[in-house]
């Protein structure tokens, strides 16, 4: 399996451990990652200028298409926006024309057949749950994990096609594959509050605190995410709190179960 790794803006600068652990785990599972000169996925300008966001997304996918690769991103917002851009390009001929012209100026073609995938479905469906389970040599038996889905991968399901939007199982299945136990928690599909942080920090914090409290009440010992935005949000609202619920990125949990050292997964910081 070959993918162009799309890290987006937040992972390299704010959550570098996510990149380290993703590369470590996928490398062991036979997924070959290629690095292309990608730029912003377009998500941050989606609100203000839809077209600019689509151009940014299309340009990245065009780079992947030129390299003959599909895209794998560990970020759910990048994933959601790239897929969203694909949909808009599909349904709006006028937009498609203008974007194609902008790409052509750079010698790029409108990408038509690039697949955009998030890390979790690649693991669960591409590599396969059996293969993931087979790679586990140090099962996290007894560890109670709350899996946080993240909105922009799960919804709108018509665009993202990530999993059943009302009753997803993908993340819990991946958690169980590591030997850990996936706790049931009512707010598992709720927002982390990050996209609201700039406009309304109080409300954003309240939403995030509510989620963490819910996970804790459900008996979780660790909150696992698969998106840099969600991860940063939960880390920052718990900063300095003695009762903070420990955080982990999914490939870190999986890597530990695969017998990798915490250091090699960016966990020793």
């Amino acid at each position, binding site marked *: 399996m070959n993918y162009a790794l799309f890290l987006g803006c937040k992972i390299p600068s704010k959550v570098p451990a996510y990149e380290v652990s993703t590369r470590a785990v996928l490398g062991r599972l036979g997924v070959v990652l290629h690095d292309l000169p990608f*730029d912003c996925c377009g998500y941050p300008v989606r609100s203000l200028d839809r077209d600019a966001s689509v151009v940014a997304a299309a340009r990245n996918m065009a780079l992947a298409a030129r390299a003959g690769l599909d895209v794998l991103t560990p970020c759910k917002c990048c994933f959601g926006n790239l897929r969203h851009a694909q949909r808009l390009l599909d349904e709006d001929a006028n937009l498609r024309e203008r974007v194609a012209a902008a790409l052509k100026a750079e010698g790029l073609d409108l990408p038509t057949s690039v697949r955009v995938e998030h890390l979790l479905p690649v693991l669960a469906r591409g590599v396969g749950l059996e293969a993931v389970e087979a790679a586990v040599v140090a099962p996290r038996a007894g560890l109670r994990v709350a899996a946080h889905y993240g909105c922009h991968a799960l919804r709108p399901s018509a665009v993202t096609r990530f999993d059943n939007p009302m009753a997803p199982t993908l993340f819990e299945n991946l958690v169980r594959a590591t030997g850990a136990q996936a706790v049931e928690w009512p707010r598992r599909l709720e927002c982390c509050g990050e996209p609201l942080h700039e406009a309304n920090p109080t409300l954003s914090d309240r939403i995030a605190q509510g989620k963490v409290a819910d996970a804790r009440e459900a008996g979780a010992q660790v909150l696992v995410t698969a998106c840099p935005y969600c991860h940063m949000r939960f880390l920052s609202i718990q900063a300095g709190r003695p009762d903070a619920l420990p955080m982990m990125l999914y490939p870190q949990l999986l890597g530990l179960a695969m017998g990798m050292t915490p250091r090699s997964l960016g966990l020793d910081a």
Partner: protein
Amino acid sequence: MADTVFHEGFFRIALWVSLALGGLGLLWRLVTWLTVRIGSDAREVSFGQRLWAAIGGGVGALFSRRLPGMMGAFFLDVLFQRRLFATSKLRWAGHLMILVGFTVLLVMHALAAWLSGKLFDNYYATLNPFLLLRNVFGAMAVIGVVLLALGRRRDWAFGRPARRPADGIFAALLAVVLVSGFLLEAQKIASPKAFYRMTDEFGLGTDAEELAGLRWVWKQDYGVAFTDLHGEPDADVLAEGRELNSQACVDCHARPQSAFVSYPMARAMAPVTATLDAANADRALLWLHVLACLLGIVVLPFTRFFHAVADPVSLVARGAAASGPLSLAGRVSRRALAADACIRCGLCDARCSVAPIARWLDNPELLPSRKVQATRRVAGRAWTRVGDGDADRLAQGAHLCTDCGRCTLRCPVGLDLADLWDAGRDDLAARGLPAPATWIQEQPAIAWAEALGTELGRVPPAGPLSADRRTFSACVQCQTCTNVCPVVAHGGTDADRVDLTPQKVMNLLRLGMVDLALGSRMVWDCATCYQCQENCPEGIRVTDVMLELRGAAWRQLGPVRDRRRPE
């Protein structure tokens, strides 16, 4: 002691005046590092605290655990320029050639009377190796300039990187100094007038007939462009000339062929040498060369060349910061220094994450090299001269940054740009230009509708989704969207409660009252979690519509904003 133009009255005075003016300019610029305030936290520290942090902290750091970091920064970052080496080998090579070429010329040639003349027993500018080396280092500087220009052009993201008016002055002065230097040398090589001046000075007279032998030697071996010597010289006359040359000239004059740039130039200029001589060109070129250098000293603090002072300081400060956070006063001063240390090389622009977006929006103010200048303008007095349209473009640049940090990683002088962007957004917010979510939420939806000043509803549709009536026509006002909305659920207190629920926003659009929907808090408080859209039994794209409204609000409400103008 070697001869120098600076022994002459006018040049001597000009040198001192230039040094004094340059020194004052330098002092002025150094003081701004302690007075310019960028970021809201900058108002918490006084000039005195910053001065103390700079002097006390700087000296103290020399005797602390920061020393190794600072030493490493000085040797690896300042002298070897490893950051530039890692980013662009082409520019690194160009920059190093200018640095070495210029520094050696400055020390060994411009300051010859004080250094080379004292260091070497037999220093004459017209003897080798000095003659050769002057050309080597001059050529090195010229090639360096060309390499840098090539690298700079290659790395342009789109349009030019930021520029200041004085950048052109610096480039012009550099060119004048280099070109006039070579031209001067070339003219002196070829000039019969210079030849006679020397023979006269050394008691050989200026009689063309008497000096025939020596002139033949200098025409043949030294490239002097005597126009009256034709054919082949008489063997006896030539032998006589050689004898005289070996007695009077060779001790101070190597053959000029080793001036591998100037000599070919002298040959090429031979047809016009006489004309130039008649116009005293060597004297004029000397004046031009020296005055350009002196003018360079005067304007140095206000041109790009100031980076020769600012960058080493910036890099060493960075080395100090690497071994533990600086004090607030130190950080604030480092920020002020950043705008001076940025030479607008544009390396950051070339890998800016939002460069494709900047290109699409046709707003280069999104690019980091521009933002450094904008941040400085916003913080300083220049802000009052920024027009509304410009201010909006600067704000767009600041707020569309994704904080990916690539510019900071790439900056060859190690500026903490991420910190600068944070501080810059603070300053913009303080001057009435916060992120759109903030300024739009400053007044209620009805006030925005009034500001738009149109009959209720009479504004253009927000975008393709809201323009299409089918988007909402199926809405049965079942309130499912509102019921599943986490923002509605969590917005308990008055301060942050939503004004319109998602279902109400959809209803306004259904009724064609776009203007009321535009200024709604809900539009900006939306978490974009897509619960509403996913759960809508009629398949209405509620979240997508919210996003479309944001873009429209940003475009349409901006022009009707009641601006708090900068102080």
